[in-house]
C-alpha cells in the first residue's frame, strides 16, 4: 500500500485545467496544419488559419483558447495499491478544478441546479470517471468539454439486427445536424455497444485518443477512415462555411452488449479540443 497526499491530485488537476485550456495539444495543431494543406475553400482556409493563429496567441499570452472553458471531465485511473491521505478523491479533484479555474482566469460555466441555473462560481463539480487499475500510480486525464458541441451529441438504441449502414447513417446525420453550430472541424467520438450509460462514456473516451490515432481493432480502423471520408464529403467545412474539412477524426470505441441491444452514441467535439493528462507516480 502506498500513501499519496490528496493534495498531489489537487495540484495536478489545477495544472491540467490551465494547461488544457491555454495550450492546444500538438496532435490537434498538426491535424489543423494538415487540413490547411488539403482545404481548397478560401473561407475554409481562412478559418483554419485563424484557428491556428488563435492557438499561438493563447499559448503565448496564456489566454484561454475558447471563452467556453468547459465542464471539467476528469478521467482517473487509480492504482488499487494507493491509499489517499488527508482528503477524499472527489474533494481533491474538485479543489483542483476550483483552483485551476480561479488562477487560470477560466470561465465558470457550471449551473448548480439544472432548472434554477445558479452558477456554482468555481466550475465545480467536475464530472469524474474513476477506474481502479493494478499498481500504485494515479493517472489523471482532463477534458475541458465545451457546451456547444456537447449539445449536438446524440444517443440511439438500435435493434441488434440493425445494419452497419443504419448505424453509419445515424453517425453522419448527427454530424449533419451539428452543421455549423458546434464549431467544425469536429472530432467525432462514437461509442457502440455496452449499456445506455456506458455507450455515452465510451463515445467520450473515444475523444481522448490523440488525433490521428486509430482504434486497436483492424476492422474498426477501416471503418473510422471510411466514416471520416464520408463526414468530410458533407461539405460543412470550417465554421460551416463550406469546405473539405468537416472533421479531423472519427474515433470509434466498442464494448460487449446485451443480446437485445445495440446502443450507439455520438459525442461531438469542437476543434478547440482541450485535453491534457499526467501521472502521479
Amino acid at each position, binding site marked *: 500500500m502506498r500513501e499519496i497526499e490528496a493534495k498531489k491530485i489537487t495540484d495536478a488537476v489545477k495544472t491540467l485545467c490551465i494547461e488544457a485550456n491555454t495550450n492546444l495539444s500538438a496532435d490537434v495543431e498538426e491535424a489543423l496544419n494538415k487540413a490547411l494543406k488539403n482545404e481548397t475553400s478560401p*473561407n475554409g482556409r481562412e*478559418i483554419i488559419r*485563424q*484557428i491556428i*493563429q*488563435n492557438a499561438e*496567441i*493563447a499559448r503565448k*499570452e*496564456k*489566454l*484561454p*483558447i*475558447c*471563452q*467556453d*472553458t468547459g465542464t471539467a471531465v476528469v478521467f482517473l485511473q487509480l492504482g488499487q495499491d494507493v491509499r489517499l491521505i488527508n482528503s477524499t478523491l472527489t474533494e481533491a479533484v474538485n479543489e483542483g478544478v476550483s483552483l485551476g479555474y480561479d488562477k487560470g*482566469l*477560466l*470561465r*465558470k*460555466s457550471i449551473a448548480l441546479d439544472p432548472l434554477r*441555473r445558479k*452558477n456554482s*462560481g468555481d466550475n465545480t463539480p467536475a464530472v469524474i470517471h474513476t477506474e481502479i487499475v493494478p499498481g500504485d500510480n494515479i493517472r489523471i486525464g482532463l477534458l475541458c468539454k*465545451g*457546451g*456547444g458541441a456537447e*449539445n449536438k451529441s446524440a444517443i440511439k438504441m438500435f435493434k441488434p439486427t440493425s445494419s452497419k449502414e443504419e448505424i453509419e447513417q445515424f453517425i453522419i446525420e448527427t454530424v449533419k445536424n451539428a*452543421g*455549423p*453550430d*458546434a*464549431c467544425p472541424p469536429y472530432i467525432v467520438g462514437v461509442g457502440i455497444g455496452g449499456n445506455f450509460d456506458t455507450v455515452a462514456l465510451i463515445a467520450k473516451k473515444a475523444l481522448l485518443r490523440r488525433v490521428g490515432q486509430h482504434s486497436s481493432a483492424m476492422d474498426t480502423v477501416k471503418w473510422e477512415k471510411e466514416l471520416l471520408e464520408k463526414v468530410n464529403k458533407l*461539405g*460543412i*467545412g*470550417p*465554421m*460551416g*462555411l*463550406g469546405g473539405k474539412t468537416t472533421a479531423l477524426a472519427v474515433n470509434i470505441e466498442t464494448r460487449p452488449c446485451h443480446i437485445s441491444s445495440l446502443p450507439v452514441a455520438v459525442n461531438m467535439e*469542437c*476543434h*478547440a479540443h482541450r485535453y491534457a493528462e499526467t501521472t502521479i507516480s
Partner: protein
Amino acid sequence: MLKPPLANKDIEKLNAGDRVLITGKIYTARDAAHQKFGNNPPFDIKGAIIYYASPTPTPSGKVIGSIGPTTASRMDTFAPALLDKGLKVMIGKGNRGQEVVAAIKKNKAVYLVVPGGVAALLSKHVKKSTVIAYPELGAEAVHELEVVDFPAIVAIDSKGRNVFEKS
C-alpha cells in the same frame, strides 16, 4: 465597416458571405441575460448590435479575457421581438431558425458569424469592456464592448439569403 448605431441603409448593402469590420459599441448577451431582459434590454436597442458571448475573466493588464461567440440558435426564441424593436445586428455562431430569418427580412437586419473557438484572437479587437447590467450573472452579465475592426462574416442578410444554405 459597420459603425453602430446602424440604419437600414447600412444594413441593406450587406450581402451574405461579405466580410465586415465593426468599430464602436456592441453589447454581449446570451441565454440568462435574454431571459432577464425579454424585449427590454438595458441599452438602446435602436440600431444596436448584440454579440452572443460571455468572456473569460480579465487578466491584469488586459481589457478583457477570451471572447468568442456562443451558438446563436439558442437565442432564436428571443430574437424576433428584439428585431421588431430595432435591433439591427446579431453576432454569433451557427445557423438560425426560420422565424429569425423572417424577422431579419421584415426588419431589415442582419446576422453575422465569427469563428467559434478563436476567442483569444477576437479579444484583441476589444478596447474597452464595462458590465452595464446583471453583474450577478458573472460572465453572462451584459457587457458594453468598444471594439475596433472586429471581423465578422455576413451569414444571413436583410433579404434572407443564408450563407449556410448556399454551401
